[in-house]
């Protein structure tokens, strides 16, 4: 399992270009992930690989095709210095785990990587780096396996309830 390292402000057009948005199947979307931006990703990404971004990862369009394309490529975890809001929420909802790590600068492209979710850290480049847990109510969605699984168990919601 390796690291695919990207820079700051990776937008959802880069993750999956607009011309592929009629596709909804994650495996098919994965064939075009980062097309034109980093063409080898679609060919070489393997189950369990980790995408590492800089700040503002996933900015731009609300297209859920972006987390789906990464999931289709076998990526289960994205680590970044910070995430754009809609992508972060879409990732949680679809079962792609977004982890914030302030020290991503110490991770290099191609590093072997392992993630200890319970321990709250990732290991790459011979270093153990702390990651911030998914907060509050989103954690419950992650633990349930995504928003669809969470919603299936609900008949109705209590409007105006707070966490």
């Amino acid at each position: 399992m390796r690291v695919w390292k990207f820079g700051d402000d990776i937008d959802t057009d880069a993750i999956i270009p607009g011309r592929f948005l009629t596709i909804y199947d994650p495996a098919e979307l994965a064939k075009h992930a980062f097309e034109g931006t980093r063409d080898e990703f679609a060919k070489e990404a393997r189950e369990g690989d980790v995408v590492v971004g800089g700040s503002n990862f996933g900015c731009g369009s609300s297209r859920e095709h972006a987390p789906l394309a990464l999931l289709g490529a076998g990526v289960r975890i994205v680590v970044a210095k910070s995430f754009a809001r809609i992508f972060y929420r879409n990732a949680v909802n679809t079962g792609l785990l977004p982890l914030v790590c302030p020290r991503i600068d110490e991770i290099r492209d191609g590093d072997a990587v392992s993630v200890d979710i319970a321990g709250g850290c990732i290991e790459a480049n011979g270093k153990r780096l702390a990651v911030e847990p998914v907060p509050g109510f989103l954690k419950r969605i992650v633990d349930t396996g995504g928003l669809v699984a969470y919603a299936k168990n609900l008949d109705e919601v209590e409007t105006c309830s707070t966490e």
Partner: protein
Amino acid sequence: MAATIAEKIFSQRCGRTVRAGDVVMAPVDAAMIHDITGPLAVRVFGEMGGERVYDPERIVMLFDHQVPADSIPAAENHVFMRRFAEEQGIHNYDLLEGVCHQVVMEKGRAAPGEIIVGTDSHTCTYGAAGAFATGIGSTDMGFVLKFGALYFRVPESILVEVNGTFGRRVGAKDLILSLAGDIGADGATYMALEFTGGAMREMNMAGRMTCANMAIEMGAKAGIVRPDAATWDYVTARREIEPFDLAGDPDAAYRERRHYDVTDLAPQVAVPHNVDNVVDVGEVAGTKVDQVFIGSCTNGRYEDLAEAAEVLGTADAFATGVRVIVIPASRTEYLKALRAGIIERFVEAGALVEAPCCGPCMGGAFGLLAPGEVSLSTSNRNFRGRQGSTQASVYLASPATAAASALYGEITDPREV
């Protein structure tokens, strides 16, 4: 207790006081779905066990990204969505009315104090109507279709007070680009921008929509223009609703207060490949352009087209070798421009005028760029590959700057035309 507009909207809709940072399951007053992200939302709704949507009257459906269908899969999406609308009794504007955000506004589907979501990041546009409006993904929308509510973290707010008077051929787009440059592409992540001040009060609704539209380009969850008489005139002309006061309190806990004066603001240009990469037009004047796009949810309204036409003036033709694509944001705006003779002027000068849709900004339907080509666009994103090849370059500017650049075939200061 003093509160921001965002805090007031969530408190009012939830029936008790909530504060920035609170996570609340809030009711959704309107939900917008379109042809690209809608089909996934509908599928998710089914996977969640959804049978009937919570309230068909509160759902706005339309097609704008790939219209008329540009491929067989796009046509299949339209058929799929039409069938869902029919089954559920949802009014579907289909592909007749135009770009989603313009249509929601002009059909009176957004009003002050409402909570509105849409499966499109530029849903924040409805902040121009004083609504709390934000873009969500398709899975969240599946949840909304089923339950009519969604978890929200009530955002902190940045107060943006804008004063002064715009110079000739400088306006709302220049202001919001300059703000994006100043605040940065993630400077307002998870926050709401609350616009106020004399220049905002003087600004027409078209300009306010341009500003609210681009709040997302700073990472913001919403961009809300403090409602005033102009807001209420716009909204009450479209639906029955009793005006009320909605303003942030002077002593509310704003994360930050920013003050701008637009009096000496020059036309602004966002240069490739980030929206916050913003310079005065003079710094990039002379850059050759292959394509100019005037349109989109950011700048496709009658006022925008009129601004471009005013710069075009009585000139015979746009520069040779420049493709000028003009796309009104809606059928209504198209008709206004048509009746004012503006469309005729564009066509005479050599523009391609297309029916209302997202156009090149969708990055797939048409109007795409080849490697090495340069586009100047009045839309909201210049990301690498947004309008075609990842080796193409997109500059963002106002309709006036776009028209001036189309006339000379290079980026041009509209004040010098």
